[in-house]
């Protein structure tokens, strides 16, 4: 039997997602409360498009939430996405959810309430822009929330304390691992004999919450107090 995905929210994201999922042989039901949007969805997805408020128990049950392998909450309202996710996991025992974060400043609320994983297109775009046009010396590239690990990019300037040092002389403690150096559009595999240069981009794997420590050890300005 094909896995069953319940998509809540039939706007641009929900509609495109449902189409792609169907094309990949998933069973899909999409819930949308706006009558106009629902009519368009119904034309395309027929009985797989359900009209109603996706935070209402009766609507979720009609859509078959109890047998859903995945619930994906992609409405335009963060509070709705949080409640949908909480109902799915805690009331119906759905194993897999994804919640969309519309306003990145609400991310901390999703995290605090244990609603994860989340997807935020704004945050994704922002991090791409920062990667291309960095104006800060520390960028967060990737976060493995469950594993408590993150990948960061540290950009060195002429004044960074790490510049000119060989890697073997860098005081990197346990839990902080330099995995790659991006130097003039080439990647350099780190080893002890390599010395750090200005404009090096260091890709570092670290435990969650230690990024400032990383920055302080390598990228702090020489004349800045530790």
């Amino acid at each position, binding site marked *: 039997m094909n896995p069953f995905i319940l998509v809540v929210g039939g706007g641009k994201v929900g509609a495109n997602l449902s189409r792609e999922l169907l094309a990949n042989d998933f069973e899909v039901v999409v819930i949308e409360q706006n009558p106009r949007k629902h009519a368009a969805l119904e034309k395309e997805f027929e009985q797989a498009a359900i009209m109603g408020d996706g*935070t209402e128990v009766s609507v979720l049950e009609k859509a078959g939430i109890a047998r859903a392998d995945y619930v994906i909450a992609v409405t335009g309202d963060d509070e709705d996405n949080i*409640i949908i996710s909480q109902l799915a996991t805690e009331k119906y025992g759905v194993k897999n959810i994804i919640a969309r974060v519309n306003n990145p400043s609400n991310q*901390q609320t999703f995290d605090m309430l244990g609603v994860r994983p989340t997807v935020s297109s704004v945050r994704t775009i922002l991090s791409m822009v920062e990667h291309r046009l960095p104006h800060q010396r520390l960028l967060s590239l990737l976060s493995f929330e469950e594993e408590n690990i993150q990948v960061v990019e540290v950009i060195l300037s002429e004044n960074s304390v790490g510049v000119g040092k060989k890697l073997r002389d860098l005081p990197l403690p346990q839990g902080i691992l330099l995995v790659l150096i991006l130097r003039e559009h080439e990647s350099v595999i780190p080893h002890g004999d390599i010395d750090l240069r200005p404009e090096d981009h260091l890709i570092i794997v670290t435990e969650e919450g230690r990024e400032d420590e990383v920055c302080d050890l390598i990228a702090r300005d020489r004349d800045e107090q530790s």
Partner: protein
Amino acid sequence: MRILIVGCGRVGSSLATLYDKSGHEVNVVDEDEDAVHRLEPEFHGGFFKGVGLDVGVLREAGTEGADVCLVATDGDNTNLVVAQIAREQFHVPCVVVRVFDPNRAKFFEARGLRVVCPVALTADLMHQAVSDFRGEDIE
């Protein structure tokens, strides 16, 4: 007591007036700045414009350190998320939240929120009124 009220509609503004008159320290949050006119001119407390989901506004309005947080915006889901923020993040000892939908009310009540569901209450009261009139409990 320090009381925070999120949502300054009929219910929120009545509660704000009530507690303000009896000398409590009241702050009110509403996304519509015109909602301030629902409060009486002699209201002593603070009014903060902002959405309840905005943790910054909640902090500014003194959620941290509040004794009581009453949540009554017109959105059930907004109310439920704000109530959880007040409880989990700001550790407000007494959080009371209005939820119209009886199903969501029941579910979140079971998870430990103090929920007031006007729909369920009204149905109960109307049923009680009929029973009282008939002088017997009707099932």
